[in-house]
Structures are given as structure tokens and as C-alpha cells.
């Protein structure tokens, strides 16, 4: 497994852990909140029922009124059992239960809810037939009698709501994981690709340098051979330096470029030293930007132009830097890819294959534009357009 794949896997697993644990916590909190609210509601309701029932009990024809009262609550999923000390007055409980075995059921009542209730109230959760009920047993005193009230509330709705929430959140998590996982994979692979290329590209000059050094060390060479080998080493070290410079430039990519004052004369003097055969006409004085990046940009464009062959000519004036060469013509398809900064196919790449992409990135960071033109009559011209704010 490659290093970037390992990094990807670690990042993705971390993401999954954070995502899932936070969603789990959120769901648990939401449920607890629902549950407490349900209990608070129930306790309040039981109190009001208890109050009403004691009033009804004292009225004439109370049996009929209590029946109607209980029926009305039953329709809303609330079941009641009323009794006085002698007889049962009403019973709409959906399950049969003896008052005694209720003590065995789970009790988990939030303190905030209990504090609301009268001290004679006993709250518990009861499970029967796969359904969960909230049970409150209380008593109240009417003018004549002590009334025993069993209040039972169907809790199924909040459990169903929770189940639906879990399903939908799981679905969202899954989709999000797939989406983020894919994006992350593409992003990390994209970052890694130039690194792969660079590693390969570093090997070529390294092979030459090492090889010629061994050649000098081992061989019985004439002065001419030795000069040739040393010359190769010097040249390949220059290539190596260019690649390292590109790497450095890549490290600075991203965001908007700085507005440092760059003396263009200085830059072009350096370029002239590196590439003695090019012709430079410079009327630009100062560019506001990132010096390392601008140097890397020009270095890349010039070395590409030199590789293409022919005479290389640079004209810098107003807000444009033009790099012309009379070498081989770039075909239309490749030109299109170059202008749009699309990736080139393997056959189209001559060199590392990340130079032009880097140039586009640098120009974009300076809010400029990079264009490529090529024809048999005029040769190839690469133009860096800089915005007014940069010159």
C-alpha cells in the first residue's frame, strides 16, 4: 500500500468515527429530550385528570360521566383506570395488569419531571405486548372518598419517531460517507500524482549524475572524456535544481499571491544567466506578486520554449509577458488542452507533465491569464496576462 493510500484510509476512518459518533450522540440526546418532554406532559396531564375526576366523582350520575371521560382520553392513546376504595369505576387499560406486579418494571424518570408532580405520584415504564407504556399511579381525595387513578400513556409514538430518525440518519450518513470518501480519494490521488511524476523525474538526472561520477571514478579516461562527463554532471545538476525549484513553488501554491514588489529587471537578468541564448526585451519595471512563484513561472515557460527548439524571444511590456519560440508547432488538440489547463495524455507530455499545470496555478494566484497560441507562420507564443492591480 502506498503512503497516500494509507493516509487516505486513516483520514477516512477518522472521518467515519467522528461522523457516526456525533450522529449517535445527537440521536441519543434528541431521544432523551423527547422522552423527558413526554414524561413532563404525562405528569401534568395526570394531575389535571386527577383534578377533573375528583370533581366528576362528586357530581350526580358520575358513573356515566366518568365513562365518557375515559373513552375520550382512550381515543388519544391515554388509558385510565379509576377506582375508589370499594369498587372499580372505569377501566380502559389495553392490557390486564394486577396493581401489584407493576413494581417490577423499569423506572427511569428525569428528576425535573418528578419535581413537578405531587409526592403521592408513582411513575414507571411498563412494557407489554412489544409496546412501551408510561404508567403513573396516583391518588386524590374527593370530598367523600380517596380515588385511585392509574394513568397509562402509549409511548410507542416516540419510539417509532426515534426509529425513523435512526433510519434516515443512517441513510444520510451512508450517502455522506460515500460522497466524502470519493471526494477525498480523488483529491488525495490528485495531490499524489505530481509527486509520483516528480519522483520519476528526479531519477533521470540522478542516474546521469551518479553514472558519470562512477564513470570518472572507475575509467581510464582521456582529458576529453573526463570533460564530457563533468559537463554532463553539471548539466544534470541544473535539471535537478529546476525540479527542486518546481517543488518549492508547488509548496507555495494556493490562495491569492502576495503583493511583494518584484523588480522585473532583476528577474530577467537571472533568466539571462540561466538561459544565455534567449532574447529579452523588457519594458516592465515592477510586478506585484510572489517572487519565487513568478521566477518559477518564467523559468518553466522559458525551459519549455527552449525544449521546443528555435530562437526564444521574450517581450515584457504593459501587463503582458510574451514568450515566443520558432520551434515545433503545437497541434490544435494539445493547444486546447494547454489553454484550458486540461491534463495531457501520456504521449503529449514531454517532461514531468506538471510544469504547465503549475504555470496555470501560479498565474491564477495572481489573478491573471495564461494563453497559448501556435501556428506554422508565427511559431508558438505563450502569453502571461497580468491584471492592472499587479503591474
Amino acid at each position, binding site marked *: 500500500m502506498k503512503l497516500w493510500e494509507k493516509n487516505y484510509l486513516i483520514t477516512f476512518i477518522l472521518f467515519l468515527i467522528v461522523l457516526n459518533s456525533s450522529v449517535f450522540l445527537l440521536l441519543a440526546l434528541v431521544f432523551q429530550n423527547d422522552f423527558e418532554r413526554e414524561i413532563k406532559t404525562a405528569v401534568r396531564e395526570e394531575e389535571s385528570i386527577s383534578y377533573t375526576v375528583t370533581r366528576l366523582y362528586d357530581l350526580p350520575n358520575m358513573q356515566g360521566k366518568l365513562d365518557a371521560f375515559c373513552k375520550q382520553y382512550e381515543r388519544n392513546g391515554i388509558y385510565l383506570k379509576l377506582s375508589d376504595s370499594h369498587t372499580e369505576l372505569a377501566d380502559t387499560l389495553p392490557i390486564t395488569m394486577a396493581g401489584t406486579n407493576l413494581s417490577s418494571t423499569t423506572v427511569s424518570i428525569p428528576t425535573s419531571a418528578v419535581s413537578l408532580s405531587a409526592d403521592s405520584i408513582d411513575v414507571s415504564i411498563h412494557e407489554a405486548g412489544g409496546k412501551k407504556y408510561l404508567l403513573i399511579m396516583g391518588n386524590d381525595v374527593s370530598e367523600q372518598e380517596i380515588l385511585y387513578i392509574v394513568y397509562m400513556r402509549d409511548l410507542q409514538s416516540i419510539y417509532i419517531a426515534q426509529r425513523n430518525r435512526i433510519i434516515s440518519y443512517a441513510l444520510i450518513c451512508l450517502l455522506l460517507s460515500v460522497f466524502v470518501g470519493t471526494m477525498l480519494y480523488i483529491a488525495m490521488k490528485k495531490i499524489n500524482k505530481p509527486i509520483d511524476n516528480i519522483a520519476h523525474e528526479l531519477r533521470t538526472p540522478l*542516474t*546521469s549524475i551518479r*553514472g558519470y561520477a*562512477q*564513470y570518472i571514478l572507475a575509467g581510464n579516461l582521456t582529458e576529453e572524456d573526463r570533460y564530457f562527463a563533468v559537463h554532463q554532471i553539471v*548539466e544534470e545538476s541544473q535539471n535537478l535544481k529546476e525540479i527542486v525549484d518546481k517543488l518549492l513553488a508547488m509548496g507555495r501554491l494556493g490562495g491569492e499571491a502576495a503583493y511583494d514588489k518584484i523588480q522585473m529587471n532583476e528577474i530577467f537578468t537571472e533568466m539571462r544567466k540561466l538561459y544565455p541564448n534567449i532574447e529579452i526585451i523588457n519594458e516592465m519595471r515592477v510586478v506585484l506578486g510572489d517572487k519565487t512563484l513568478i521566477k518559477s513561472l518564467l523559468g518553466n515557460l522559458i525551459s519549455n520554449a527552449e525544449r521546443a527548439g528555435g530562437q526564444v524571444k521574450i517581450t515584457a511590456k504593459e501587463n503582458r509577458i510574451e514568450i515566443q519560440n520558432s520551434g515545433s508547432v503545437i497541434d490544435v488538440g494539445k493547444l486546447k488542452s494547454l489553454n484550458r489547463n486540461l491534463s495531457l495524455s501520456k504521449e503529449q507530455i514531454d517532461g514531468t507533465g506538471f510544469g504547465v499545470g503549475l504555470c496555470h496555478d501560479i498565474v491564477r494566484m495572481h489573478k491573471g491569464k495564461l494563453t497559448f497560441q501556435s501556428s506554422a507562420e508565427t511559431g508558438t507564443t505563450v502569453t502571461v496576462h497580468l491584471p492592472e492591480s499587479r503591474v
Partner: protein
Amino acid sequence: MANILIVEDEKSINELIKRGLNMVGHNSFQAYSGLEAISIAEKQRVDLVLLDINLPDLDGFQVIRRLDGIPTIYVTARDDISDRIKGLKGGAEDYIIKPFDMEELLTRVQVVLRRFRKEQTVFVLGNLEIDLKQHSVKLNGSEVDLTNQEFELLKVLVLNKNMALSRNRLLDAAWGADYEGDDRTVDVHIQRLRKKLRLEDQIKTVFKVGYRLEL
């Protein structure tokens, strides 16, 4: 000596390999693209091909199929296991990864040539005749008596002629890697070789390195 075709688009590396091969006495042809390589292989007698995989036109895997079974060694920057396996399964004799060691490259070339019996076994140096297969050395036509170590030492020098070899390398070659002799052992045996074979001028001492047989 063998005729070796170098297929490498990077000019400086192509030249480097050529110089390395010429140093030990091989002939070489230089090709900078796959098609060029194929056309040279058709016209010339080529004993061995050193083939890069990343080439401007065809890739190395395509080139090898059109080389008619000429022994081939890949020399490439591609170090993926999958590429190596693909290369070797595709009929290559060996797979060398850049950056390579010149001496290693030459040794691997020698091994492949030996496998195909294209390695030179008889060397004539002036009035000296060395037959590596027969284990015999003749000076002016008459047999010279050499100890086993002396012969092995001579063999390494001859096979790597014109290259400076370190004392350590010579020690390994003639006495085996396990032998715990010191550099002086080599010096003593080189002295004897020089004397017995009249090679005082040809076996040069390379300052701070070792010895070189110059021809």
C-alpha cells in the same frame, strides 16, 4: 565482445551506458526511440538489448515483442512490482532500476551474455592468452602456473578491464565474500600476477581505490 543495442530516449543516459559498455570492450548501437531500435535490430547483429520502458513512440513492452527474441534487459525508472513482473514475464532477461550502478549494470550484462553463451571466454592481451573456460594462461605460447586465487583475480580484472576495481571487490571476487583477509592480501597477489605475466605496466594502481587492468 558483444554487440549491444541501447534504447533510451534520454541522451545523457544513453551516452553514459554506451561509454560504460565501450570501456569493458563491448560494441554498442544507440537508439532514442522504439521504432529506431526495431530498425537497428533488423539491420545489425545484436546480441543484447538494453531497453527503457518510457519511450517517445512505442513503450518498451511493445518494443520487446518486435525484437525477435534478442535477449533484453529493461533499464527503467519504473520501480512498481507490477511493472517488474510484467517486464520479466514479457520475456526480458533482467530488470534494472534507475538510478543504476554502472558496475552492476555491466555485471548483469555479462551474466545475461554468459547465459546465452555470447560471453567472450578467450582474451588475448599482447603476448598473453587467457582462456577463462579452460582455466589456462599462456605467455608467449607457454603455460603459466597460477594459483586459484591468482587466476580468479586475473579473471575479474580481465572481465572489467579499463575499470578501476576496489581492493574489497577484488577480495570478494577471488576469495569469496566470507574471506576475512585484508587489503594487503590483494596487493601481494597483484604483485605476483604482475611478475608472472609481465603485466607491470598494464595493471595500474589506482590511488586510494585499487587496481585497473589497462588495455
